[in-house]
């Protein structure tokens, strides 16, 4: 399997403020009833974006100025809560190519990387700077350089940390580990043979 090498991404951004945005917020549990991930993007942030009658609530993702943004910016501990991959899937299917936040919940982070959706951590001040730039100029081009771990926008450069293992996986096009895991099958059999509970 050959996967895209994700070294750098360029696009417009949208800032969804708040800390501890959990996976139930990202995609409410009632949308998890599905047997495929197709179509999940439409329900991203549903409960904070839509009223019960389907009309829009004020939310950055409903703001036409940020339509077509591919880089999602947010606060601390983004993606906490459930391990459901529906959350990164909804983000990706909505059209986002990367998430930039102050920090991320563990499982969410791993799930994103496996989908080839980079997560970069930046300081609150730097995220605020980017948010301010896109607030005044929504068309601002943002470059998330995964390899160099930096974000460039409006003539500024700020640090954006991508964990070593994730960066390696993204940059070298091995973010979906299935190929490598399958290659290890002979070693899997040897390891399994050591355990009585795994005797076939």
């Amino acid at each position, binding site marked *: 399997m050959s996967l895209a090498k994700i070294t750098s991404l360029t696009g417009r951004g949208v800032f969804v403020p708040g800390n501890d945005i*959990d996976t139930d917020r990202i995609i409410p549990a009632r949308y998890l009833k599905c047997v495929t991930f197709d179509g999940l993007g439409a329900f991203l942030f549903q409960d904070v974006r839509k009223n019960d009658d389907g009309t829009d609530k004020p939310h950055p993702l409903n703001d036409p100025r940020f339509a077509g943004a591919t880089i999602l910016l947010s606060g601390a501990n983004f993606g906490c809560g459930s391990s459901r991959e529906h959350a990164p899937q909804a983000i990706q299917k909505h059209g986002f190519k990367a998430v930039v936040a102050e920090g991320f919940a563990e499982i969410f982070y791993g799930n994103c990387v496996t989908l080839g959706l980079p997560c970069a951590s930046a300081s609150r001040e730097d995220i605020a700077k980017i948010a301010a730039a896109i607030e005044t100029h929504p068309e601002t081009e943002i470059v998330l350089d995964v390899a160099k771990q930096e974000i460039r926008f409006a003539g500024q450069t700020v640090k954006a940390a991508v964990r070593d293992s994730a960066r390696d996986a993204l940059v070298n096009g091995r973010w979906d580990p299935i190929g490598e895991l399958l290659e290890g099958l002979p070693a899997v059999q040897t390891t399994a043979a050591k355990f009585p509970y795994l005797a076939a």
Partner: protein
Amino acid sequence: MTDPKSLFQKVWDAHTVRTLANGQTQLLIGTHLIHEVTSPQAFGMMRDLGLKVLRPDRTFATVDHIVPTDQFAEPFRDPVAQEMMDELRKNCARFGITFFDRASGKQGIVHIVGPEQGITQPGTTIACGDSHTSTHGAFGAIAFGIGTTQIRDVLATQTMALGQLKVRRITVNGALRPGVYAKDVILHLIRTLGVNGGTGFAYEYGGEVFDRMTMEERMTVCNMSIEGGARAGYVNPDETTFAYLKGRPYAPKGAAWDAAVARWRATASDPGCHYDDVVTIAAADIAPTVTWGINPGQGVAITERIPDPATASTVDEKASVEEALAYMKLTPGAAIKGTKINVAFLGSCTNGRLGDFQEVARYLPGHRVAPGVKAIAVPGSQIVALQCQQLGLDQIFRDAGFEWREAGCSMCLAMNPDKLVGDQLCASSSNRNFKGRQGSPTGRTLLMSPVMVAAAAVTGAVADAREVFGVKN
């Protein structure tokens, strides 16, 4: 003499297949548990890639999230739920996976079924596409909640790619005060260490309090490790663990049992092993705890007041208290005790086991659910339901005005017909109080122990179970 090692390190090392190019470990997963919500997409990916299940004999399925608790016959009223059910049946049949379907009498919440069947064993690795997989750590297993793509990885290779974790030892010494339960221990720990205090860690729970706990109580604590941000949580196996497992359907038998116990004993953390962090808590400091906010760390002792954002120490804290109180429609600085409730929910993988219902049933006789409160009791598995019936507990709950339901996740989350309506306030024995978690986008959840849920149910408001029931455990 080799260096002393923690249980985590021993299990990790033994199950390491190799190091991957990105530095992560290809980790052998001994036991794979699947359910209807997160597996169909993984099976879809398997089909797309032409892969087959490597170890159907180490993969076990049940159905829990979407099952209605008031309807046994199929088709379900909800066609999507039925579709998910059918999909799981089809995938299990196709790949030869054991499915504890409802007709088997062994169906239930995945984190209750594994231990109940004796599938969950010490020194093993377990994965399940569900964040509360940490529950299985109660047996001294290293158990990970995983995403759908990782489910595919485990189905196809019985391994997954994972970075090494650090280990934090959490010791709780002394004796819990009367009316303080395992649920309070974990709510207190999360409140103390924070909802992301465990990031990058596996939690090892130990000390006198854990030594004395039943397996069910250990499961309650390990269950919520994830709510504290930890990737896994475990208790070292001991005589209590072995006694629980003995005779269970999937537990080793005869000579194999003795050999297994010897191996299991050896997987416990060695004295003097290295921990990356150590936290010590005095049991006497733990009170019956109730959450007031929108994450499990936002809790107070039943005798305390709801925080006031005006007294918050940081800007962040102020903002998060304000956001939580606005959503919860609670008054800053008011006593949590006396907060009126609309719904009481007993059940879930945190507190839906036999011991939970037994403990509540000790106190229920002579009490009635308060007028206007909807109270439901939902056994976590068909076996728990049967045990409760055999002991006459279901009748005690019914007599007190609870609805007694069939096994499932029920009102823990909004994927089956059990849901909050509007901004109803629910006293809940489950594990998550996130916005909208219980099915209504404005529904509100207060997490607490089962006995505290019962006290709220019979008084119609958040109450101190020690006063309502004279709890003296």
